[in-house]
């Protein structure tokens, strides 16, 4: 378990740095930056101190902290996938309109 915890911490720190880089490049606004940092710091905290979320595990009848992390990850993935889907549809439509306008000009 220690090895897996180490990998998770390295990954989270790596993503913390990437989130910061995107913020510095003005690709994330401040709110996005804070939200992503909370997510990665939260992951580090849960990995180092699994009992810190014991009250949540009790409230939702989840046995292991690992299960909790996986459930949260899946929920986030669904959310991000949905948002990507909506954005992709919107971009497709905008691109089509732009190409059509250029063609008919």
């Amino acid at each position, binding site marked *: 378990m220690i090895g897996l915890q180490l990998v998770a911490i390295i990954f989270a720190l790596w993503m913390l740095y990437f989130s910061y880089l995107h913020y510095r490049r003005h690709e994330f606004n401040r709110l996005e930056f804070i939200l992503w940092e909370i997510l990665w710091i939260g992951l580090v905290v849960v990995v180092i101190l699994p009992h810190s979320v014991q009250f949540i595990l009790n409230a939702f009848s989840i046995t292991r902290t690992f299960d909790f992390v996986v459930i949260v990850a899946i929920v986030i993935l669904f959310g991000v996938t949905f948002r990507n889907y909506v954005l992709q549809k919107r971009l497709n439509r905008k691109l*089509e309109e732009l190409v059509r306008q250029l063609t008919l000009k």
Partner: protein
Amino acid sequence: MKTFVVIPVLNEGERLPVVIDEVKKFIQDIIIIDDGSNEKNASRIAQLKNRVIVLRHRINLGKGAAMRTGVEAAIAHGAEAIILMDGDGQHHASDIPKLLDKLTGDNIDIVFGSRTIGKDMPLVMMLGNKFLSLCSSFLFGLYISDTQSGFRAFRTRAYPALRWDSPRYAVETEMIANAAKKKLRTGEVQVQTIYHDDYKGTTVIDGIRIFTSMLRWKFL
């Protein structure tokens, strides 16, 4: 009735001049939409500018999107009726009068040119087509024997009701769904078809996508 033929094409530089020659025997106003063909084909298509209106999508958007651009260009040129046909030579221009006679004679909004199912049509395509026809009939109450034929004619006044969003091959079926939902007057005529060896039409995967789109148009 001022009629335009709209032909969306992708990499059809070789066959297109022949198609245009054939169409010119019946209709003079032709709009070609080059939907992002490669350089070689794009330059061949561009050479036709002195004979027809050639418009070019800078990137490939799909057949449905090209058809919309073509139709909107035709309307801007004052078209009262529009004929859609494929640029690969699979449709016979000699069927154009048949489509127009039906459109004007019966005063209807859209005429679907249906290929003879079962004769020269590849088996997979025949079965898929039949399945989609039955689905169209069941879901929208409009049976068209060949839902995937791109050879059709409609009055410009019907375009706001027909206007499609599908950028790719679902466009033909979406037109049928829209015509049924908006209660347009529809007609159907038999047309001839030549299937080329390198036929690039609807695949089985496209068929599945079209079916799921039909469910979406019906229920969402």
